[in-house]
């Protein structure tokens, strides 16, 4: 979110406060993953955005089964439903930008699958962050980090969008992701005492 805004001297501390407190140095997290450089076309960004929304939904649904906290479960259910709407809007925008007439199934098979080929499964992805699934704080933190990535992606896509209508749609989705982040933040405040 910051790297695209002129901050070029950023260091992310692997493992966060947990690693700092336990004094455990985690190994490098570079697993040969491809990075999104920020120079991709709007079309590329929309494909990745679609896969991210799909991933978020998958994440919320699988986390709902892992948490016993009703508040967390309820919010995750609500957010998982919203991600379906986001997927639909991203797909509609993709059709508009590309001028293609393919079905959502064709889009998923031809474009989305190719874009995430070689990527991580949800399980492998979650393993990167090593959350404690019994800890609501860990689960909500992870949800927030993924929502923040989505927000960053939409803001960058909006910056690169050619026409004003596309820009407005992308900014609207970005705004909704910000609202998700706030909801998760509030939930975190209720959970942490």
């Amino acid at each position, binding site marked *: 979110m*910051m790297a695209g805004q002129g901050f070029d001297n950023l*260091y992310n*501390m692997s493992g966060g406060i947990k690693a*700092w*407190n336990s004094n455990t140095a985690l190994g490098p997290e570079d697993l040969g993953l491809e990075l*999104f450089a920020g120079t991709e076309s709007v079309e590329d960004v929309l494909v990745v955005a679609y896969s991210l929304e799909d991933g978020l939904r998958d994440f919320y649904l699988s986390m709902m089964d892992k948490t016993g906290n009703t508040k967390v479960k309820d919010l995750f259910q609500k957010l998982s439903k919203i991600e379906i709407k986001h997927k639909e809007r991203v797909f509609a925008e993709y059709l508009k930008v590309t001028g293609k007439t393919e079905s959502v199934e064709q889009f998923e098979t031809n474009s989305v699958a190719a874009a995430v*080929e070689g990527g991580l499964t*949800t399980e492998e992805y979650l393993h990167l962050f090593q959350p404690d699934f019994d800890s609501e704080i860990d689960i909500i933190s992870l949800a927030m980090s993924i929502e923040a990535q989505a927000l960053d992606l939409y803001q960058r896509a909006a910056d690169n969008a050619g026409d004003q209508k596309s820009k407005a749609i992308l900014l609207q989705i970005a705004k909704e992701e910000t609202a998700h982040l706030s909801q998760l933040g509030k939930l*975190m*405040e209720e959970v942490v005492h």
Partner: protein
Amino acid sequence: MRWKQFFTPVTSIDTTQARSMVDEKPGQEMTILDVRQPNEYEAGHLPGAKLIPLPDLGDRLAEIDQHKPTLIY
């Protein structure tokens, strides 16, 4: 469903490197940014860390010096 890492490239450092960085650049020479929620911050944070919860970050970027190294957690 598969995932790809698509953060804008940001350098990741481990806690040992982070500790050296904090030791070498004390006080005003760097920013330590805590993007967690206020209650988490109150429960414990890195010395001198500035709190800007993730949901607020987009609106509060102006509070951070772009030219200083920023350690985020």
